[in-house]
């Protein structure tokens, strides 16, 4: 009725498996040393496989290099075209520059520096070490801001137009009315203008040119006219500049 040998075998197998499960459950079959050994062995296998598959990897790398080369060739051709365009632009630029230098603007050496405001005194971070001289012109975005007043080794104090009470800059309006730009400590004034001359609001005022200051440098625009003194034969206008020394991040100095 019962196949006892078969039952015994299956019973034995079940007991063995349960015993192994029990050992595993109790953590007695961790086999950490064996596992680390196997991992080392697999690492060696992986290295060997990499060596074996190196030709394939090289072929793939060559394919990638070919694609890269094609891309570079394309970029080279593109760059050549751009270079030709740049050459043309450079020639055009040089021609324009020559034209400008031959007319009214002389291309000269200039310094770019940062303005420093110390106790509301306008100072530059350049000095006699940089071949600056007293009287050098200070420009901000092409606007005449002032001249160098005092010179240290590495610092220069700027005399702004509004502070020029003793000296002045000879200037003219767009319509050719001449005068002198000075300051009263508060505003920039366009003074010594003949009373017969007509000054228009928003008119531009530029330099005429004098020692140390080149011609046609933009100073500012006329924003108002002062009350004319009947006793005097001259009139005065107030100018406003487009830029402010204290708000600029960089200024230009022409020695």
């Amino acid at each position: 009725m019962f196949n006892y040998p078969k039952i015994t075998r299956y019973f034995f197998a079940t007991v063995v498996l349960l015993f192994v499960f029990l050992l595993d459950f109790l953590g007695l079959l961790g086999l950490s040393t064996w596992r680390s050994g196997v991992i080392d062995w697999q690492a060696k296998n992986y290295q060997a496989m990499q060596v074996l598959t190196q030709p394939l990897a090289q072929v793939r790398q060559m394919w990638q290099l070919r694609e890269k080369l094609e891309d570079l060739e394309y970029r080279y051709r593109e760059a050549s075209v751009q270079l030709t365009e740049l050459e043309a632009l450079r020639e055009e630029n040089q021609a324009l520059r020559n034209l400008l230098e031959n007319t009214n603007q002389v291309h000269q050496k200039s310094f770019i520096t940062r303005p420093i405001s110390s106790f509301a005194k306008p100072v530059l971070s350049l000095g006699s070490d940089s071949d600056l001289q007293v009287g050098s012109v200070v420009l901000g975005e092409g606007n005449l801001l002032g001249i160098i007043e005092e010179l240290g080794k590495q610092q220069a104090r700027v005399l702004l137009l509004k502070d020029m009470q003793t000296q002045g800059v000879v200037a003219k309006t767009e319509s050719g009315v001449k005068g002198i730009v000075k300051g009263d400590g508060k505003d920039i004034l366009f003074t010594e203008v003949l009373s017969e001359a007509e000054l228009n609001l928003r008119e531009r005022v530029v330099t005429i040119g004098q020692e140390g200051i080149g011609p046609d440098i933009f100073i500012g625009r006329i924003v108002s006219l002062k009350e004319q003194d009947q006793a005097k034969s001259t009139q005065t206008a107030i100018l406003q500049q487009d830029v402010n020394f204290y708000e600029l991040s960089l200024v230009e100095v022409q020695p």
Partner: protein
Amino acid sequence: MIYLNYLFQVVFLLILLSVESTLATPIFTLYLLFKLLDRFNPRDDRSFYYLIASLLLLSFCLALFYQLGISICIVLVFLYYYLRSLFGSKMFSKNFQQWQILQLSLFAALQIAIFFLSGLSLNIFMLVQGLLVLILLIYRTIKINRL
């Protein structure tokens, strides 16, 4: 002499398992191993104990090479072997093609289980392995059906 032959086969299978376990699932190892175990058809006590010992050894090896728990491996291997023997013996062996599909499905299920349990990821070696298996299957189909 026959034992020496078995020993060589076991050594070869161990090397194959170590190579396969580096990058892929043990398709060829298990296929060849179960083919070898088919010789231990448990007609008597001795062959039965050999079979149990072999299956246990296989479970240990799988657990080692695929960083799995021993209990899980034992369950997987013994369950697979039991179902394989069951399908191969009585119930589902009415026609040969049906038997083949069942065996293949079981084997695939075992491989997929190992793949997911051991946290493997697909790589180029696995694809090469799959391609080889496909070629082998086509070859066997042609050979068996005498096409």
